[in-house]
């Protein structure tokens, strides 16, 4: 039996917002936790993110937004994954997100939303519990 392959996560920055402190910290945290990490860099459209995620064959996409456009950009990524038949890629997100938006994002298929103050460890544990390498 071959050992289970590592979890592959894409950390993505959708939209025009340039605040990448959180995305970079979480990308490092995931790498240090033993995941394979692909970071898209800034200013990606949902289309670019979904194409890259499929191309890179990732298990999950972690979206970061700090400028209020999450309510359009996050659901749009989920929608495009569905269109491409890749909705087994788990989408989660984090950033400056008002509490009342979180349930809306969950309803739109974002599996979890992390707000400021979440530790790297809590996010890593959530990934370990919720994301399995895809077949």
């Amino acid at each position, binding site marked *: 039996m071959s050992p289970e392959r590592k979890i592959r996560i894409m950390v993505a920055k959708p939209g*025009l917002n340039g605040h990448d402190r959180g995305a970079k910290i979480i990308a490092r945290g995931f790498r240090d936790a033993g995941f394979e990490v692909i970071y898209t860099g800034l*200013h990606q459209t949902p289309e670019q993110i979904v194409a890259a995620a499929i191309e890179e064959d990732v298990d999950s996409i972690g979206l970061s937004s700090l400028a209020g456009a999450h309510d359009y950009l996050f659901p749009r990524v989920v929608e495009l994954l569905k269109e491409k038949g890749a909705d087994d890629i788990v989408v989660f997100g984090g950033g400056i997100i*008002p509490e009342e938006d979180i349930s809306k994002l969950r309803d739109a298929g974002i599996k979890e939303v992390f707000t400021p103050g979440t530790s790297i460890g809590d996010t890593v544990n959530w990934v370990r519990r919720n994301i399995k390498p895809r077949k």
Partner: protein
Amino acid sequence: MFREDHLKAIGDEERRWTEDLSKILSEVPERLPRFSTISDMEVKGLYTPKDIENLDYSRDIGFPGVYPFTRGVQASMYRGKIWTMRMFSGLGGPEETNQRFHYLLEHGETGLSIAFHYPTLMGYDSDSPMARGEIGKCGVAVDTLKDMEILLEGIPLEKVTTSMTINPPAPILLAMYIVVAEKQGVSKSQVGGTIQNDMLKEFIAQKTFMLPPQPSIRLIVDTIEYCTREVPRWNTISISGYHIREAGSTAVQELAFTLADGIAYVEAALERGLEVDYFAPRLSFFFDSHIDFFEEIAKFRAARRIWARIMKERFKAKNPRSLMLRFHTQTAGCSLSAQQPYNNVIRTAYEALAAVLGGTQSLHTNSLDEVYAIPTEEAATIALRTQQILAEETGVTNNIDPLGGSYFVETLTNRVETEALEYIQKIDDMGGMLAAIEKGYPQAEIAQAAYQYQKLIDDAKKVVVGVNKYATDHAPITTWKMDPLIERRQLKRLREVKEMRNTQRVKDHLKELRGAAEGDENLMPHIINAVREYATLQEICDVFREVFGTYTDPGMF
């Protein structure tokens, strides 16, 4: 500063005191094995004249308004004039933001500060596919001169100064501001304000970039050259450490990278053939005021001393105004917590106090809800009141640089200065800031510091109240929500402007702009001509993108 025999006596006393203290500590140890600032700079329990024995009062501290300006840039500081209370505001469309400006001015704000939405910051119009989901969300939407006219309606531009946080399209927004003033009957020579216009820190930290570094610098020097000649009360650039710090740097890195950026701009302007004393008086700075009180005060004091010496010794500036580091401060957004958000009022108040004790010229205080969204009117009012209480109740404005001469603060000022100079030397050795950015050096230093700091928080080695200590549930707060009608109104107005303007004239001016961009003429007059005819922000930026190319994030982490 101290007599030799006094210093010797103090040294002997200190040794005795240390011995006594270690006896006490052997029974009751200190709370922590090591005390350090938020930037992880180690701090001793006590400082004495011994720690500053090499300090020369006249050479290193001096008098306010006098070189090297350690104690402040004006002779009378806040006894003469309180800092400008400038609340960074921008929400939805120009109508909503104009209303917020009037509200804040009525409540005692003394200067304006415009926050633009992301499409404007990045050089896209609201009808661009790149703007989907972003219109009016994180600042005000400005596509054309029309929006700027609405935004500044009823604001007396000959009296109120305005700071605009705008970088790649800074010359365009400045052009719009000049034309709106002109329409109000206020000439270029009367308007006062600031454009951020600092692209180096964008590549390093804030990451709103459009063009590659070289043409970005050209546009900046164009604005410096133009304003120095035509808009003499305008601060041509706000060389910013704020975003560097918010991206996770230490206090020393914030200071060093900002001043190294400043050096790069001075060199670029000199290369253009401008005289240093001609443009340097209009350079301004912008720093973060983080939660570590004394470290921040030391940083502000060191900033003034280093810059004065750089300008005098390295660039041979003679005009005292060229040597003065004048700065705006914003309290640290990154120090705020989503948990127990009312605590943010307290954090902001301490940070504002540090900025004032550090001698800031203007100040934005964050609102308690900015960790969730654009501030509500109520939250912005509390933030403004925080400054007013500081200015008019606490008495801290009675006296200039009250912490000058503190053994601790002077030691910390020296240390921040020494460590910042080491960084600046390193960047000089790399060939300057542009070369350092190409190597990814400041970016990597900041990412490393941010990660280290996050681990300290996660391990509770640094306390954030309500986050990793005293954590409790809190009731959700009401945050600002954008009316979806604003987006439709913005798109409709843009369509109407495009229909009503003289298309041929717009085309002609854009063509002239392109020609000038391909050559080496100053672009400002051409940009002003184009915006006056209601050319859109993106139409102008598209000319730049086509002529100069674009910059994309290398995506390092």
